[in-house]
């Protein structure tokens, strides 16, 4: 089969929830009293006659693995796609219900999960129905001023995440780097106008911490972009490897910075109407953290006293589960000369940098929080340095070396696609 001109379709639907449901955040559950923004599911389908790919973004904290499998299967079945051709990306908003276990809350909100599994496949079906002639390109800008590595090396307490509050006179250096590259996938219509954008930037936003349902940053960026373009262009947010990266400033400034970056990148991006599409996924069994004891107790007591009981319960939950490993998968899409990698959980930025450095693609986007949520995926260095992200929990399962293995595997997968 020869490659035909690219077609692309996009669709959106609300997946909002009712008041009263507990909103997800580490150690900070709170019942929703209203909604600041809707929660959205967005889908982009790409088809070149040879291959069909779907990217689905969800305004959710994460999806537990079983739910992600159900949803992927439903999309694949209803849209006649291969499961590996479906990339599910959650935004990691703290303004959505518990759709995956998180430290500080015992369970998940099954009703929301069921609603998502029921509703989202129809969004993808709609996107597929909307296919139109298109061209695709990837642009990038460098915005190091927007983010910082929030794991800070201290003089006497190893690493502490900035948001936990760092004692005075202690900070020496960030533990690791940031990735300043802000990437945008631009889909243009037959007249050259963008009709869908995907943005990928390595940072974890956590602006929505109150009692309002909120999609948080992706929603406000969409709103601001629409205002600047004077029309609605669906923007899909590809959560990136931001497990150790936070935004420097508040919501308003961040929306301004992100939207400007998005606009600048898309305005500079040329697109190709005939591109090769391909996908691959690899299942992998990663080591699980040692939950045989509450090893991290002294450190939690020291750095996060409010979390001592919650992390103790997490150890108990993990012991009850008795898992011997973390089963997950890594996905990779080829979009012409560009690559899109999907990693599960909240990987540290070092993994994205490693993949980009070794990728054969002209440009590589690395999305985190793809598929089933496995929590923080941290570096070997971070295990040694300690800190919040290293403490075992249902939302921090992957053990020593797991992230490095995922990154290596992703590079191998990309090389196989090229």
């Amino acid at each position, binding site marked *: 089969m020869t490659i035909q001109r690219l077609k692309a379709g996009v669709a959106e639907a609300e997946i909002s929830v009712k008041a009263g449901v507990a909103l997800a955040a580490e150690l900070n559950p709170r019942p929703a009293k209203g909604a600041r923004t809707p929660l959205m599911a967005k889908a982009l389908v790409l088809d070149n006659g040879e291959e069909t790919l779907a990217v689905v973004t969800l305004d959710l904290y994460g999806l537990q693995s079983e739910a992600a499998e159900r949803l992927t299967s439903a999309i694949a079945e209803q849209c006649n796609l291969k499961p590996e051709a479906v990339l599910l990306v959650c935004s990691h908003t703290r303004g959505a219900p518990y759709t995956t276990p998180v430290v500080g809350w015992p369970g998940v909100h099954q009703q929301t999960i069921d609603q998502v599994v029921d509703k989202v496949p129809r969004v993808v079906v709609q996107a597929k129905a909307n296919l139109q002639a298109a061209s695709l390109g990837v642009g990038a800008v460098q915005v190091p001023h927007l983010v910082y590595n929030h794991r800070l*090396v201290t*003089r*006497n*307490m*190893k*690493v502490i995440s900035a948001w936990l509050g760092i004692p005075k006179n202690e900070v020496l250096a960030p533990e690791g780097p940031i990735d300043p590259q802000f990437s945008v996938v631009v889909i243009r219509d037959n007249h050259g106008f963008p009709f869908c954008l995907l943005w990928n930037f390595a940072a974890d936003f956590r602006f929505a911490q109150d009692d309002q349902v909120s999609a948080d940053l992706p929603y406000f960026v969409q709103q601001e972009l629409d205002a600047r373009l004077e029309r609605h262009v669906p923007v899909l947010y590809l959560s990136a490897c931001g497990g150790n990266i936070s935004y420097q400033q508040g919501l308003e400034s961040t929306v301004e910075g992100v939207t400007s970056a998005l606009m600048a990148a898309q305005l500079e991006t040329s697109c190709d109407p005939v591109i090769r599409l391909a996908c691959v996924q690899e299942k992998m069994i990663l080591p699980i953290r*040692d939950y045989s*004891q509450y*090893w991290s107790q*002294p450190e939690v007591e*020291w750095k996060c006293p409010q979390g001592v009981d919650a992390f103790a319960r997490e150890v108990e939950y993990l012991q009850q589960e008795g898992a011997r490993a973390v089963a997950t998968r890594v996905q990779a899409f080829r979009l012409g000369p560009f690559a899109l990698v999907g990693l599960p959980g909240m990987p540290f930025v070092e993994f994205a940098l490693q993949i980009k450095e070794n990728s054969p693609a002209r440009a590589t986007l690395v999305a985190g929080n793809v598929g089933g949520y496995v929590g923080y995926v941290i570096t070997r260095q971070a295990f*040694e*340095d*300690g800190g919040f992200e290293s403490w075992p929990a249902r939302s921090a399962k992957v053990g*020593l070396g797991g992230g490095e293995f995922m990154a290596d595997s992703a590079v191998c997968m990309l090389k196989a696609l090229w």
Partner: protein
Amino acid sequence: MKAGPLKAGIAEVELKPPLGLATGDGAPEAKGFLTQLFVKALALSNGEEEVAVVTLDMLGIDRTDALRAIDLVQRRCGIPAKGILLVCSHTHVAPSMESTLHTYRKAFHPHWNDEAIRRERQWVDVVVDSIVKAVTEAKANCQEASIGVATAELPWLVFNRRRHTRNYGVWTHWMGIPKNQAYKPEGPIDPDFGLFVVRDAQFKTMAMLWNFTGHNSFNFGDKYSADLPYTVQAALDERLGEHIPCLYTPGCSGNTNYFDYQKPYGLEKATDEVTSAIIAIYREACTLPEVKLGSRKAELFFAQRDFSHYWWKQDIETKLPGWTDYGPREIERFQAEARQNETYQTDVTVLRLGEGALVGLGGEMFVEFQMMIKERSPFKHTYVASYTNDYAGYVATRRAFMGGSYEVWPTLNARIGREGGYLMVDKTVELLHELYEE
């Protein structure tokens, strides 16, 4: 700096400590001898410059005592202070000489008292006199000579003793690492074995000086022992059928040990391997009769570790519970000292010995630092002698402060902060370049 005809002299003076002194890291009171203890001195001159390397079978020497000895040598022998290295072998069972370890002794030696301190000070005076005597004799023995360097690679002899564990950060090997925990060493080893060879006018080897990086700690009982330098000298004499004085300068061994050092056969095994290496390479050394000699010395002021709080309480109680009561005592001592002086002063000393350089650093340096120095040195052969002209305690890398464990706790005399080693490296390299380019 000009090259000139080399003259070299060697002398050995036996140290005869009385029984009953506390050993460096062994018993409160020594009750016998396993080996003799020596001061050895190698004096070198080329008509323009004079330098002296003195090796001591001791755990370490306080800077004040080292400076006193160096000053006496300078005044009596005319060798400039900047050109004198007093290098301790770091045997753990020679008489203690460090006032900086008195808090430790008070914590663990029930009979440690003013009388014990007086006896220790008397012994230090004997050692200082012996240093002066040895250098004086070495200088008097000077004769036409040539000097060169031979090298070997011995990675199978030593290991990095700081190990990463799954759940405890870094754990130092000798403290007993819990099962199912260790998965990799924190740092490297340096397999580079260096041998300075000094030949007389008839080309006969008259002295050697070896440098290798591993803790000279094999015996821990109540008998005095020089450990490795003595047993290597004895094995060498036996295999060569003659006595060629051999000086030992330990490399930056703060985090490296010999394999099997805790086993009864550990010393014998290390002795055999080191002696074999020396005999394998000493004839290969190319020596020069006309050489450049030179020296540089710099005093540095080091930021200290954070004594404001007993930060390492949890780490100590977990990994070395026997030190639970002792740890806070050192914190109190360091706090009191810091009220008088916020920094710790020690020196970096660098000698040029022909085509090679010998660096003297005062602490129990981590091996990474000497590897940095070697990497950046302009000299073809550069070796670093730790425990030299001071006993400044462990000097650890930034990474080690993250990993924790014994060497980074503010105990014993380990007080130099996380940047100290890097400053030593930078200054050393600066001095090496000065010497090389002069």
